[in-house]
């Protein structure tokens, strides 16, 4: 007997099994270890994807499984790409994506920059700022409907306090013009801390001595910010944008709770729209084509973006 843990494990294996395992090559053993993961991936990711592609060429309806299914070729794709309602949905999504990322980066970076200056209690501030991120999106969506209440809502009250506008004169959720902004505000409120944390990690990765060297080299604060801080935080910032972009492209829960896609369909983002097509109208084939189009879009955008990110990191 020996104290070597590997050998102890080996002797603990029943002799018959051990003999059988000993007969296997390293490659075979490697396959045995990877097989469960591969199986799961195939079952949960790859197969559904292929099945969805298949369905996207049919007029299948999941609520009528017994009906005869016809292959309709590219007709689903054609109808989606020429449907003006879907383009409106896409526009709403683009508006949501662009402005949430814009504000979250702007505010998140500024907060990180402020927190990063060494002052008393900055750890406490970090914790406080990060709180919204820890709530459930459904809860956030729900209680912001109260904050947005024209009569009793805190949001309207605060806006009226600073601008003097009558708090009951506008409805964030109910108005066609304001509703798209209402979801931008809530998502920004909730996820800016996330961007801030990543920026903070970036800022903390810059050693003090670089700023000392820059001070000796007579670079002003302004120039230090643009030639040192920004380029060195940029890879982190881009990563935050990637995460937020992907998350918000599939945004569902928060907006459903908050506006339900309304009024009309001005806040009906693609994922909400897709869910309606698939599970309210039960146009499964059509929705599958829709999902594939979204998948290709996201995949294409993400790969271009990741290439850019790698280029920035290499610099």
């Amino acid at each position, binding site marked *: 007997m020996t104290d070597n843990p590997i050998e102890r494990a080996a002797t603990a294996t029943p002799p018959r099994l051990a003999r059988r395992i000993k007969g296997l090559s390293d490659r075979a053993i490697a396959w045995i270890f990877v097989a469960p993961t591969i199986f799961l991936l195939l079952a949960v990711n790859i197969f559904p994807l292929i099945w969805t592609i298949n369905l996207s060429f049919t007029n299948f309806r999941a609520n009528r499984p017994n009906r005869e299914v016809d292959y309709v070729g590219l007709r689903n794709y054609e109808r989606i790409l020429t449907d003006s309602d879907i383009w409106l949905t896409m526009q709403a999504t683009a508006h949501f994506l662009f402005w949430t990322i814009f504000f979250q980066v702007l505010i998140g970076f500024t907060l990180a920059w402020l927190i990063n200056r060494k002052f008393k209690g900055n750890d406490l501030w970090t914790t406080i700022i990060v709180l919204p991120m820890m709530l459930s999106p459904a809860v956030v969506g729900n209680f912001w409907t109260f904050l947005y209440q024209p009569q009793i809502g805190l949001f309207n009250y605060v806006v009226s306090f600073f601008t003097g506008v009558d708090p009951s004169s506008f409805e964030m959720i109910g108005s066609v013009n304001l509703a798209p902004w209402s979801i931008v505000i809530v998502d920004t409120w909730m996820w800016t801390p996330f961007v801030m944390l990543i920026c903070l990690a970036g800022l903390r990765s810059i050693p003090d*001595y*670089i700023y000392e*060297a820059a*001070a000796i*080299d*007579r670079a002003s604060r302004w120039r230090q910010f643009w030639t040192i801080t920004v380029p060195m935080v940029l890879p982190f910032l881009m990563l935050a944008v990637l995460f937020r972009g992907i998350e918000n492209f599939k945004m569902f829960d928060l907006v459903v709770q908050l506006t339900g896609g309304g009024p009309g369909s001005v806040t009906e983002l693609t994922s909400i729209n897709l869910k309606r097509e698939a599970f309210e109208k039960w146009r499964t084939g059509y929705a599958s084509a829709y999902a594939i189009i979204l998948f290709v879009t996201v995949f294409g955008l993400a790969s271009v973006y990741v290439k850019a990110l790698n280029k920035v990191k290499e610099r």
Partner: protein
Amino acid sequence: MAEVILNNVSKAFGQDTALDGVSMTIPDGAFVVLLGPTGAGKTTTLRLISGLEKPDTGDILIGGRSVVNDTPAQRDVAMVFQQYSLYPHLTVHENLAFPLKSPILRTPEDEIARKVAEVAEVLQISHKLNNKATELSGGEMQRVSIGRALVRDPSIYLMDEPLSSLDAKLRSDLRVELKRIQAGLGATLLYVTHDQIEAMTMATHVGVLDQGRLVQFGTPREIYENPVSLYVASRLGLPRINTLPVALFGDAPAGAATIGLRPEHIAQGQGRDSTVTRVEHLGDQTRLHLSLEQHDIVTLTDVHTTLRPGDTVAIAPRNPLYFDTNGTRIA
């Protein structure tokens, strides 16, 4: 270029006193070397002059003007950091050009390119100009760091062990180059080193720091030949000065407790018999380890000596240094 004066400067970090009442005048155009063991306060001195640190008490003057409340940019100093401190996201060329791109200077582009090329040539890093700063060896980083100072024309150059990680050949090349550049520009330079040859060959003045105190300031010869204390005497000289009880040789001035013998203070072939314990052939010199009444003595001998361990050599002091019990020089 300017004269730099430290006036009774002290600096503490919490409980640690890094500098304790240092007064020093660095004349315009001088090449001053700071010596001292690790932790003596050499880097702190440079950081105080550069403005990265503020003195607790005392005054610092550059060109006759008090600068204690000035920013590093206003002081216009160039510094080579001990830990290089390059901009990791920039190329070597961009690192070298960075100080010249300061809006204060408004250097034209072709002038920047010319200066960078010139400095890179001197430092033998021209072939690495397009490398990123992180894609360099330690010695290359160190040279870029020197280059970033040399492209400038500051009131004083501060260099913290700038040649420490270079190989022997490059080190002696750059020693000559630095001295030539400094002399050519008439630049004021404060230079930290542990290297005896750098101190003796480059310096016009040497300052010796001991636990934050400046214990002696003078020409390299003065420091070597006329040290004020045992501590200063052991900063310079290779092999190191031998310290022995005066009683070994007798005939010492009153109050002397220790006799300090550098190799040239030891006359061989007369006086007391000592035993050879080891002979080290270093190539250009041969070191002789001797033992006299259990005291070890290291000295130099003829390169082609035939002495072997066990042989006997008679030695006697010749114009040695005498120190009292506190290590203060008395003769």
